[in-house]
């Protein structure tokens, strides 16, 4: 496994949002975490990316403990996170945004080479290079965020609700790019409110509720589980202990 979370407890202020999360992400896969609001999905990404320090528990990446590292240390290991809800810098140009993705690199030639590569993968980066990122559509902004995160040539990409605010057509295009990033050899850990769309492109599905992993398995198994539909209709999953479907 590329990434392992074992009994991770984390939260904000006095409360624990994650209450003992166990999660494994296989190298080269797309793993999608779904669950209701407040389940702790985004918090999982925050503890992995170093934005939030876990209170207890272990996080390993490539067999190495990364719990408690800061975001710069995590980035240097090849893990990048694309934050939820438009994380471009709106007053900066598209090219400035993408270049900033390589902030930690000092080799200018390497940065230019990476920029050319992501411009090829994401034509919008070249077409709108000198436009302010805030002037792009929601879908285009997502693609710029993807391009920016690839500037470090990461091994693991954490995506926090990439479908948020997108129309169905744009969502399909964005998810095609997510799939393309995986096919390019990267591992994706995806958090999605749009469970059907997220699980649809994933190899592995994880359902979270109240700070714990309740179900996990292949995406077909998770999608076909009757409890999932109940969950999204406002109910809760009755099986308290973690259930492995696959």
């Amino acid at each position, binding site marked *: 496994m590329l990434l392992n979370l074992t009994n991770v407890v984390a939260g904000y202020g006095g409360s624990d949002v994650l209450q003992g999360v166990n999660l494994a992400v296989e190298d080269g896969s797309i793993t999608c975490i779904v669950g209701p609001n407040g389940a702790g999905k985004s918090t999982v990404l925050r503890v992995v*990316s170093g*934005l939030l320090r876990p209170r207890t528990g272990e996080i390993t990446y490539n067999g190495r403990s990364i719990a408690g590292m800061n*975001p*710069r240390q995590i*980035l*240097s290991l090849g893990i*990048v*996170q*694309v*934050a939820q*809800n438009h*994380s*471009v*810098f*709106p*007053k*900066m140009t598209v090219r*400035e945004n993408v*270049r*900033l*993705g390589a*902030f*930690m690199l000092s080799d200018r030639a390497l940065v230019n080479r990476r920029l050319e590569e992501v411009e090829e993968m994401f034509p919008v980066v070249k077409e709108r290079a000198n436009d302010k990122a805030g002037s792009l559509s929601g879908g285009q902004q997502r693609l710029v965020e993807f391009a*920016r995160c690839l500037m*470090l040539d990461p091994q693991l990409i954490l995506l926090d609700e990439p479908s948020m605010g997108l129309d169905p057509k744009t969502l399909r295009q964005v998810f095609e790019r997510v799939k393309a990033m995986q096919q390019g050899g990267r591992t994706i850990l995806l958090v999605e409110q749009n469970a059907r769309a997220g699980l649809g492109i994933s190899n592995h599905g994880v359902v979270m509720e109240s700070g714990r992993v309740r179900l996990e398995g292949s995406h077909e198994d998770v999608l076909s589980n009757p409890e999932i539909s109940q969950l999204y209709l406002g109910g809760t999953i009755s099986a308290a202990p973690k259930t492995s479907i696959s």
Partner: protein
Amino acid sequence: MDLILQAAIIGILTGGVYALMASGLTLTFGVMEIINIGQGALVILGAYLIYVLEQKLHLDLFVGLLITMPLMFGFGLLIEWAFVRPLKRDRIMLSILVTFGVALVIEGLLGLIFTTDLVRLQAWYTTASFQVAGFYLSYIYVFGFLLSVVLLAALYFLIYRTKFGASLRALMENRTAAQLIGIPVERVSAITFGIGVALTAAGGMAFGATNSFNPGSSYDLISRLLVIIVLGGMGSLGGALIASVLMLVIEDVTAVIWSPIWSTTVFFIVLVIVLLVRPQGLFGQVAGRKQ
């Protein structure tokens, strides 16, 4: 008419100096989301440092800046590390209290050392003036304005043409996203605070050369600087520049055509009208944009 024009010119020149003092304040707010109430006291501290160099070492006021600006930059780093960095939540509110405390300490120490007697920085150009196109202009106003132009241009270059500047702007626009691309938030914040304080050294020199001052002069200054950054839009450098010039021009012109007693009142009427139309200030962002 000539008097009005002359007042407007003086307003623009003095406004440039206020822009210098306010730019540090608005930059600090934009990057760190804190309000440095101590900015006024730091300006006065900067003025006193130049005063000491002038009195003891007979250094020219502008040459003295080569010493006081790096000194104040270091002092800014120290304040940020000791008092601002530990603030983890309610940063705006707590930063007001903490930096007010810093201001009180600075004021107290300055009072102890220099007493409350008014002093003024002296050089040949603080009293001399020249005539151009029928207007009399004091050298110090022109030199102070030129100093502001040079420093603000340098600040502009730093912010818009360097890697550090890109990280600073990224931090101003989206703190979380900046962290996630590896920008060292604490280091950038500390340097920004240091720059803001270093600029007060220059502002203090220009202020002290055009006004008599004592340790208590900081209160009037900080209230004016806060009004400037609110009018310009919190966190907007361009806004601070425009608002500074607008404030001083309105005050000076009102003083000439009506009465100095009304100059501040008229400016505040303009401020209220602007805020009614644009609550975020002239160039400010609507709250809620940042993450």
